[in-house]
């Protein structure tokens, strides 16, 4: 009896010491996060919202979280598992991560979204503009992905297919990025990061070049008559080997996910932009060349490499090209996927506006389009993001 009493006493001492010290340091280090998030609550938020925010932060972030996630990931890797987080994330034979889904049913109301796109097109056309939809690629590729037959693969291509089918029916133009990438010289293994939901920056460049080609071929908008901007030779390309862990890699931990090589592509020609953007209801402005204005170094320094392009998605942003004030004006209604495409397109436009309905409260699209005469409105979504909230326009 004595030994068990002593053993329990030893653990209890350890428990209260570690729990007390950890709790104090944990609270002290999370305090700024509590202040920021509680400060961001809209005026008039009730007690429920406050408690919900506190709960979310307290459970979603703890001191040393990266180390704990790393340890979890290490365990998963040591056990030879091919899933993480209860099939939230699964790994294919190429080491590429994807979302798991036991119930792959078509949930997106694509016909309704296509109808809204049609209404948007009619409205924009009435103001002399055009509308093009761009679908970002899914993580799962039937030609490339190699999952074990029994894993619950989340194949969202059916959503993309349905969306493009209805868009065709409603005569709304689109760019199928899957086809654009297939026709490019890029290897299928470099379409997407293994650890991220996003396509690679080099895939973005190919989609950008394809979009420029489409605008020229289908609409006569000759953005790049000398094929200068779409020539990769005019861009600095730096490879950062094994340096990037995307959203899936961060959630699952790098021992499980591995790391990606990251290819940074930036213009090697003269540029000058002003970027205005809205974050936490505050408007910020930054002017400089491409690297200063359109590339967010704080994200880069913290390892969010993909989000460095335009600083990821925010409710609203505007890029003004200080060197080409007579070029066309574009509007992107999109998620985070297309940010590098926008950044590559920026030197060819006089102004690009970006609205991300999924990033928070963004302007009313109908009103916004009527206030600014855009030459083109591009709507881009990853199939997993196609939702009523993403197509929150022309609902009538």
């Amino acid at each position, binding site marked *: *009896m004595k030994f068990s009493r002593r053993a329990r006493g030893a*653990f209890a001492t350890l428990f209260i010491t570690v729990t007390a010290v950890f*709790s104090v340091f944990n609270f002290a280090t999370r305090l700024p996060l509590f202040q920021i998030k509680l400060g961001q609550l809209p005026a008039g938020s009730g007690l429920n919202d406050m408690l919900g925010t*506190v709960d979310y932060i307290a459970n979603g972030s703890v001191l040393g979280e990266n180390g704990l*996630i790393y340890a979890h990931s290490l365990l998963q890797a040591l056990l030879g598992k091919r899933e993480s987080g209860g099939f939230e994330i699964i790994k294919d034979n190429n080491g590429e991560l994807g979302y798991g889904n036991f119930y792959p049913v078509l949930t997106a109301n694509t016909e309704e979204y296509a109808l809204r796109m049609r209404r948007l097109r009619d409205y924009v056309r009435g103001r002399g503009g055009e509308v093009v939809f761009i679908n970002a690629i899914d993580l799962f590729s039937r030609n490339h992905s190699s999952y074990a037959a029994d894993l619950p693969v989340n194949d969202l291509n059916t959503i993309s297919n349905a969306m493009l089918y209805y868009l065709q029916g409603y005569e709304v133009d689109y760019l199928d990025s899957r086809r654009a990438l297939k026709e490019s010289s890029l290897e299928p293994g470099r379409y997407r990061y293994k650890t991220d939901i996003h396509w690679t920056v080099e895939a973005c460049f190919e989609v950008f070049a394809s979009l420029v080609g489409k605008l020229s071929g289908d609409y006569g908008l000759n953005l790049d008559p000398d094929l200068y901007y779409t020539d990769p030779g005019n861009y600095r390309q730096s490879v950062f080997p094994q340096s990037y862990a995307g959203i899936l890699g961060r959630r699952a931990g790098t021992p499980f996910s591995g790391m990606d090589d990251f290819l940074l592509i930036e213009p090697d020609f003269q540029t000058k932009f002003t970027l205005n953007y809205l974050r936490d209801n505050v408007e910020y402005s930054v002017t400089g060349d491409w690297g200063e204005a359109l590339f967010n170094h704080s994200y880069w320094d913290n390892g969010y490499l993909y989000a460095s392009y335009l600083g990821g998605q925010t409710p609203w942003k505007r890029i003004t090209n200080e060197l080409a004030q007579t070029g066309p004006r574009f509007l992107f209604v999109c998620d985070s996927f297309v940010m590098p495409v926008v950044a590559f397109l920026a030197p060819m436009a006089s102004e690009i506006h970006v609205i991300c309905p999924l990033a928070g409260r963004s302007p009313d699209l109908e009103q916004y389009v009527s206030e600014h005469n855009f030459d083109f409105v591009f709507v881009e979504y990853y199939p997993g993001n196609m939702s009523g909230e993403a197509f929150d326009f022309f609902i009538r």
Partner: protein
Amino acid sequence: MLYSSLIFIFYFFPVAAGVYYLLRFSGRLQNIWLLTASILFYAWGRPVQAIFLLASIAVNYGMGVIIDRLQKKEASAKPALAAACALNLIPLFIFNYLPPLARGAGSWFYLNITAFSSIPAPPGIVLITLHSISYLVDIYRQDVEMDKNPVNFALYIAFFPLLLGGPILQYADVVHQIARRNATWEDFSRGVCRFVTGLAKKVLIADTMALIADHVFNLSAMSGSLTNVPASLALVGLIAFALQIYHGLSGYADMALGLGLIFGFHYRENFHYPYASLSVTDFWSRWYTSLTSWFHNYVLAPLSVRNSSNDRMVRNTFIMWLLIGLTLGCDWTFLLWGIWNFTFLTFERVIEFENINIPRILRRVYVLAFMLTGWIFFRTGDLYQLSVFAGNLFGRNGNGFSSDIALMLIREYWVIFLAGIVFSAPAVPSLEATLLVKQNASAKAYSVIYPLLMAALLLLVVIFLIRSSYDPFLASSLL
């Protein structure tokens, strides 16, 4: 708020326990503090829920005073007791039974009745109701003196370690502990170990098994519209559910008993390794004993009179099991589950099963078969799903036996399955008992290894908790 959440472990619990021990000089202040913490704990998700808890405390305290006075005046307190019980059962009916009854009536009469389903039931409503009825009946029976201190009574109803998963208290058992108790270091250290053990059972085993069971039962509920559920997959799902419900409930009980000990309360054990039982009767003397004990004391005992005939006993036991089934859920499947248990218990009693010479292994197989089949009633939710799942399990739906998904689930989660099965048996107590007898070098080694194992277990729990709730971009808000 859940015990198995980071906010409980690193925010709520350290503050609750720290302040409690700072107030060691005054038992009264300690109780006030525990009550305050309990109300905060209860109100955390939806502050409006606290209204239910406070109203329940106020009403039951008031009814307790009335019953106590009537008893002392030697007037009949029965109507007051009946009214008080009705006042407790009405909210339970509204929150737990009215929505499914309305849905059922709607489906019978082709009406879309959703009015009641939008009212979320306050957490722990069943426990609060059973605790309250126990209090009122014990006062009525004059088993104990009524505690005049409303704080003590409120603490009996609202004490946070018990609110989510029991054990179910009987007022007479705990009234003296609430008024006066002494938390020793021995209690505290046992409580901490028990809490961490329960946490590990809940987070590492029950939550993981729940994930598997949910997927299998959901796929079965879709009746093959996505994928068929062959017998092996149904069996894997059923075993996962059996492990989930045992480790979930006993984990909660361990946490409650552990937290109770930390605050100086000693509650009765609620689980005694029921999956190691040798008969159904044995199973029910080990499974959630506070539930059966409550029904024995407050349902079976009042129904039974001295020298009851066997027929009356059987009838009363039948009523008790129907009520137990209904208490746990409002559907025909729960009633069937109650009847299932009643049938086996009565059968064993009639044939005097305990006295029959049957090899232990066969007894275990029999109990496991009884228990697994019983869980089908419990988990499937309605009669149609019950028939579909049973059809899948017993190969009656033409879905075959083998399943790639079943093999994949075992391959991915074999460690948790193994741990779930091993810790369902009394492996650790047996090991400790052996070491206690020997008191040799391995016993000494165990006393060194034990704190390290427990620390590793706690770390593992925190790792799993952060993995499940981690938002990789939350910290980026600081950028």
